[in-house]
């Protein structure tokens, strides 16, 4: 459903992506693992149109979204959970959630989805009227994910959802990712916590300095000697 064809993106004169080609199939969890600065986040930002590629193309459900404005991309069912829990700190939890459904016109269904996402993260329903910025780090990450789900995405891009979270929250978030996926949403997951990411994903890509250097089933990557040495710390 998502296909990147030799995408190059640069910041100034420095190429962050040097011809990245990846794809995500319907209903899949795919992960991109790699070190800091490998271009993982840039890949996601390029897909959702926050930064623009200089060459190559991005297809989503058959449509060329390479130069489509971000709001059109979101409307077509692709949304990104930004890195570092970029929620809206001075808006309430509820307002944050409503913003995730900003482009939807079906009010009744939106109200129902508020219930659905707070069912996934019961902590949020206790904090409805609280300002986003007063939540703990883990709760903010939950809110960021819940907010993205409010757009009813077909494909969810997640940028380092485990960043800076305690092990309990990491477990919690990853079990929700699996649950979302079971309900039919495909997930493209960028992670430094390679172990965790590969254990939920079906396929994985390994990225290094703007290039995909390896692609395989997640289970194979988990067993791969060089991946284990470089990214799993084993």
């Amino acid at each position, binding site marked *: 459903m998502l296909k990147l064809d030799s995408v190059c993106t640069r910041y100034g004169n420095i190429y962050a992506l040097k011809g990245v080609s990846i794809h995500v199939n319907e209903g899949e969890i795919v992960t991109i693992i790699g070190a800091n600065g490998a271009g993982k986040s840039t890949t996601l930002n390029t897909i959702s149109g926050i930064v623009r590629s200089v060459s190559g193309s991005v297809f989503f459900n058959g449509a060329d979204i390479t130069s489509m404005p971000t709001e059109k991309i979101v409307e077509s069912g692709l949304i990104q959970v930004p890195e570092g829990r970029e929620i809206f700190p001075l808006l309430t939890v509820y307002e944050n959630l409503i*913003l995730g459904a900003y482009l939807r016109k079906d009010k009744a269904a939106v109200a129902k989805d508020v219930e659905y996402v707070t069912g996934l993260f019961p902590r949020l329903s206790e904090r409805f009227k609280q300002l986003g910025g007063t939540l703990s780090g883990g709760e903010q990450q939950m809110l960021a994910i819940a907010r993205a789900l409010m757009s009813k995405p077909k494909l969810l891009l997640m940028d380092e959802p485990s960043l800076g979270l305690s092990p309990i929250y990491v477990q919690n978030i990853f079990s929700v990712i699996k649950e979302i996926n079971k309900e039919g949403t495909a997930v493209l997951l960028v992670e430094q916590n390679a172990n965790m990411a590969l254990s939920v994903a079906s396929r994985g890509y390994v990225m290094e300095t703007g290039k995909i250097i390896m692609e395989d089933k997640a289970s194979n990557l988990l067993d791969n000697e060089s991946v284990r040495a470089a990214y799993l710390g084993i």
Partner: protein
Amino acid sequence: MDTVAGLFLNDYVMQIVTMICINIIIVSGLNLITGVTGMLSLGHSAFMSIGAYASALLMMKAGFPFWLSIAGATFFAGAAGALLGLPILRLRGDYLAIATLGFCEIVRVIFLNLPAAGKALGINSIPYATSAPVAVILAVLGLLFMRNLERSKFGLALRSIREDEIAAEMMGINVARYKVLAFTIGSAFAGLGGALYAHQITFISPNDFGFMKSIELLCMLVLGGMGSLIGVVAGTVTLTAIPEILRFASEYRMVTYGTVLIFMMVFRPQGLFGNIRVNV
């Protein structure tokens, strides 16, 4: 003697009330731009001057009636806001502030050299039309409009842009368009206020609307609290009335004014009623 003094006082008080209402309209426009959407503007007085000149000229040269003149002035200021907004709203924070500051000076210099606008002499004997009731009604309507706008979905989108532009964009909000819209509406409010000002004071000149005027408007907003309409009213009332109350000590009133602001920044940087800090 008493009645004469009473009448004079009454008239004087009415004048201050009118001034406060005009400033409320202008500052609520700035609140939409800076407080709600988070774009620091130092050029708000430029739109005020565009409104003031437009309304004065429409009424005096084109023979428009008062209501049509101020409507035209509102439109012109809004259009100017949109025209300025389109190229510069990609800038953020300090850079946007400097660009708006530059625009403010450009507008001032244009009016200073425009023969139709009376150059440095400005325009005098503008027909008086902004009575206190007119100003009060427009200020109340303006505040109601802003309140509804802020509570709407559009207002929520603007606030999300203030909070985190990139996240707002990721949620599918067309950040650039909304910023231009907010800037346009805010500028139109400044234009309306400027027009009312022209028809109250009946004399305008380019130096009434310089950079310092922008700063004064921003001070009202910051004192009251950015992003809060109650704050807009509180800040405007305080900073419009204080200079008048302190008129007996005219040499020291600017000192007092400055001291109040310093204390505010130290002890309550989010303003009297706001919850947002100044670091836009």
